[in-house]
């Protein structure tokens, strides 16, 4: 029986997260067991019984002060320093991996009540051009770093990929960034016609955003690169033909659906949000 169970790990960088998690579990577990051992031990050994008198000391002798100092040093070096330095290294790796992700696949993500929308840049490689297309399926190639820039339309949402161990708030008024590299394909993928089929992973929303927050789940497909290209082509083709996407029962208002996006902002590192710079003349928003 595990103390904890983590979900499947499909991320190379995410290995660091799991390592810090298990290190935290072991170190804090040792500390907790020590506390429990002393607690239960004292309750058993020092219960009130005839002929047994409590000791009388206030704990302010030099020995006790030394114990306080020693415990502080032990907690600082054995717990705090270990966990903080390991956690910081994971963060550094996250920041450093971002440059490669920006050179990889880029997707713009917009959260709104109560669905995620994903904008791909199309064949010209630029966002904000007519060959962009927008989907509610999040499709990425496997073993390729993917950078996402995230905005929110209305309230705060949070872009969450549990198996890749990333979470980034989508905040109205600023653009936040994240990246990941998926290491396992989803059960379902892209069929010969370039459409998604089969069982997907899931994108979740991890910030309360209203009454539909619990339903803010989008399909997330991780597919081999050739399938990813095929899917891109199919979407681009559809965009050219200006077909309405069939998203099920929901009616899609193309203005709302398509009329967002921003010029991709080159960032040196992920996480920090920044207000998008205003669109220049001739640049579509």
């Amino acid at each position, binding site marked *: 029986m595990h103390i904890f169970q*983590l979900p499947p790990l499909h991320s190379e960088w995410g290995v660091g997260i799991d390592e810090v998690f298990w290190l935290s579990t072991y170190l804090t577990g040792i500390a907790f067991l020590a506390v429990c051992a002393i607690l239960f031990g004292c309750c058993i050994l020092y*219960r009130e019984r005839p002929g047994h008198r*409590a*000791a*009388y000391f206030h704990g302010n002798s030099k020995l006790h002060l030394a114990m*306080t100092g020693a415990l502080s040093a032990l907690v600082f070096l054995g717990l705090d320093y270990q966990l903080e330095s390991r956690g910081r290294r*994971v963060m550094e790796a996250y920041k450093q991996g971002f440059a490669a992700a920006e050179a990889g696949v880029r997707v713009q993500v917009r959260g709104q009540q109560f669905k995620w929308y994903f904008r791909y840049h199309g064949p010209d490689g630029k966002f904000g051009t007519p060959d962009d297309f927008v989907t509610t399926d999040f499709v990425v190639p496997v073993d390729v770093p993917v950078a996402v820039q995230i905005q929110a339309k209305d309230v705060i949402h949070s872009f969450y990929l549990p198996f890749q161990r990333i979470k980034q*708030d989508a905040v109205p008024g600023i653009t936040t960034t994240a990246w990941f590299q998926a290491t396992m394909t989803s059960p379902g993928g892209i069929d010969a016609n370039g459409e998604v089929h089969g069982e997907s992973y899931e994108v979740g929303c991890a910030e309360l955003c209203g*009454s539909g927050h619990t339903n803010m789940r989008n399909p997330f497909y991780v597919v081999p690169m050739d399938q990813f290209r095929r899917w891109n082509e199919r979407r681009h083709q559809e965009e050219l033909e200006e077909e309405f996407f069939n998203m099920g029962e929901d009616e899609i208002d193309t203005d709302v659906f398509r009329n967002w996006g921003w010029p991709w902002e080159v960032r040196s590192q992920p996480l920090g949000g920044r207000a998008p710079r205003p669109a220049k003349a001739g640049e579509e928003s």
Partner: protein
Amino acid sequence: MLRRYEHHIHEPPTNPIWKYVFSYDHKIIGIQFLIYALFFLAVGGLLAMMIRWQLAWPASLPGPDGTILGSKPFPILGMMLWPNSGGIMPPDFYNIAVTMHGSIMVFFAISPLLAGAFGNFLIPLQIGARDMAFPFLNMLSFWTMVPAGILMIASFFVEGGAAQSGWTAYAPLSTVAAPGLGQSLWLLGIILAGVASIMGGTNYITTIILYRAPGMTMMRLPLTIWGLFFTAVLNVLYLPVVASGFMMLLLDRHLMTTFFTTGVYAAAEGFAPGGQVLLYQHIFWVFGHPEVYIVILPAWGMVSDLLSFFARKPAFGYRETVLAMGMICVLSTVVWGHHMFVSGMNPYLGRVFSMATFMVSIPSAILFLNWLGTLYKGSIRFTTPMLFSLSVIFVFGLGGLTGLFNGSQGLDLYLHDSYFVVGHFHFTMAASVFLGGLGAVYFWFPKMFGRMMNEPLGKVHWLLTTISVTIVFAGMMYVGAYGHMRRVADPAVYQFLHPMLKVNTMVSMAAFCAFFSQALFAANLIHGFFAGPPAGDNPWECTTLEWSLSSPPKPHNFDEIPTVHHGPFEYNNPEIDDKDWLGQWEPPIGGLPEAPEAGASDDAGEEGEE
């Protein structure tokens, strides 16, 4: 040196309105806060049961062969509230339940229980005063809580229902995305509760500094008073911050300001640009983090005292405990960003906040050292208050240590807004504070009401409560580690969470057990109040000043203010023969000193102003 103050003795009022309703007597006000807190504890607990009911049987709960079993109707209340759905909770009510459970528990249940009830009742008694520095302000502080509570309850009944944006009320969800009166009444209610706490905090600080008995130096105060003192300082400093933030939310909601409004709402309504969503989060969490220490500090103080009293041994490392509590207070003011690691805040800020957060573990470890050092070589009496204090060590150990997971900026990328965080803060805020508060009730009930509660029933209540809350919050941490998000009314929507659905159901069962176990406590309270055996002055054989008085004390507490010669931890001093304790009001072991003691207050015995 500060001069000492002392109230005159005067006749108590005879009119029941002034004696029991708008009382100026800190003991009556304390009992008023106790009843108030227990009422809202029940309301908050009921809301928690509604949350757990929905999580046990969510709307997309899968059945065998791919069918959907779905939600079950909530018992009794379900059909009353939602007849159209057959008694099944709608998703927006789930968000109401989550929001109101959190805010009612934090602002209307546990703070009024610990700081309000016990702060008011104990501070003058334990420092040797006849009442608080400002008795009229004290009465006002309770009666400001009453409209605050009414506003919270009323918010359930307005159109659109009560607030639904979480107890954190992040903008813009709580501003332009929450039309209707519910959120505004919530904001007003909490602002009023904050005003009441500021009044109380001012009173506590002034009383503790200026109204101590002669010889009661700050370092001879019970640790309960130190905990309440630090709580009051944090309250007074930080409640104005959250009140300002909530005022700004009200302005955004009603007066078309754009402090936090941006995005499509601002554009659509023609608002002026310039709002910053993150500004709200900073304002809220600058208060929000000290708030969680406001909630726990009285419990720490009480547990530190009770462990000593029932181990019949001085509190180990008293000075270090005071310093540790003070250090935690200071540190708590510079760690708020650990709630915002993935918020879009500058990641370099995140690094600073992460380091500061880890530092909190050092004074916390010192607290544990001193608690365990108090037990070591003691002679432990397993009374109900002692059992609760021991279980606080256990649950706070679990909760505090899991803070080290969340404090890591890297790990929080995964754990943020998951049930791991919920489990962590419930262990530290709910379990520790609730168990500590229950222990405090059992301990001071005899002094408040002159009767004893039933010990065996108390022990059964303790066992059931401790075991069930441990299962509940450990289960939350388990599903949270697996990636279960917070505040989702229907986790079964997510395929990846399906392995955790049974754990959710088990956690809910344990929560129902915890809730219904409190019936034992209610029965014990009621029976004890009406028919408990008379308590006498000092049933627990304890040393703090309140145990030198009758149970309950006279309205003016002390006929003559005692002179204090030692701290409250003179247990099993080898120089005492006849009993194993020496009260703080008793003369010192070697006899009274001939000259005034060095370190005693300057103006011993001087009649001060009222």
